[in-house]
């Protein structure tokens, strides 16, 4: 595994990030903008499913998912580049691997949420009556993304 990290750190992408002065701060800044779209959007959707701001139609709030996806793609790209740049240190960072674990769990949870929307026998979205298990997915989503942000921030300190 370490060989892979060393190799990644010597790829042209990593070398470019290391040598061109503004790329690293630019990637970090873009990662924060993506985070705002991704986590901001998801928290709005989760809170709405849990009953916050009920006068906003549930269906159109779930319709914010494209913004969330844009944030996710921005952060997968910028995060991927940042990882390649520092692979040997990120690769052995416990906070980083915890963050990845929380991301996978959040992803599986989002998949379960999505399936509950698509496979619903009763159209609970239009009726604005999310079943209890969907509320559990929303709560889990909120907590898991908080964990992703927290472990991400702690990477510099562990």
């Amino acid at each position, binding site marked *: 595994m370490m060989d892979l990290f060393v190799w990644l750190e010597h790829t042209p992408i990593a070398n470019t990030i290391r040598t061109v002065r503004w790329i690293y701060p630019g990637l970090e800044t873009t990662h924060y903008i993506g*985070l*705002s779209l991704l986590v901001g959007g998801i928290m709005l959707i989760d809170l709405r499913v849990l009953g916050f701001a009920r006068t906003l139609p549930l269906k159109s709030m779930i319709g914010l998912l494209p913004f969330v996806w844009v944030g996710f793609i921005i952060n997968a790209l910028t995060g991927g580049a940042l990882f390649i740049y520092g692979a040997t240190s990120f690769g052995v960072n416990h906070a980083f691997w915890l963050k990845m674990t929380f991301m996978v769990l959040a992803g599986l949870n989002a998949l379960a949420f999505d399936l509950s929307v698509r496979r619903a026998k009763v159209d609970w979205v239009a009726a604005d009556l999310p079943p209890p298990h969907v509320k559990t997915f929303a709560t889990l989503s909120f907590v898991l993304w908080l964990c992703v*942000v927290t472990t991400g921030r702690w990477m510099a*300190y562990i």
Partner: protein
Amino acid sequence: MGFFAWLDDTPLSHWVAETLWAYPTLETMHTVGMALLIGALGLIDLRVLGFKPELPLLETQRLLPLAWLGFTLNAFSGTLLFVSDAVMFSSSYTFRLKIALIILGGLNAALLGRSVFQAPLGGVPVRPSRGAKWIAGTSLVFWFGAVICGRLVAYTP
């Protein structure tokens, strides 16, 4: 000794800077607050600009408490982070620009509240005016500008 140097030597400043978990915890709080503030206010701005027309315009003000929660979290965590290294932050041009953008963003949000959310008498359906759209557009510029400046404080004079 200047005010900021004095601030840097207060017990609070030492506590934030030297306690193992304080600084990262405040940073985490600042990041979550940012996501809440930008998520909620950004959605209102986008709605005023005409995105997601299926969201009832006046009802988007239900998201304002969330924006306020994010703002409060960030005013609190941001102040403590500032106190931990007051001389550095106060002398950073990027940080000063960030604060200016936050003040502009705040004034802007107050203007938006006046021009969009004060419902007209008689319940006439509201469509945002050109002026309101300008306010919403500049709001996005101010707040994303504040995020960018905040991240760049560590890399710029």
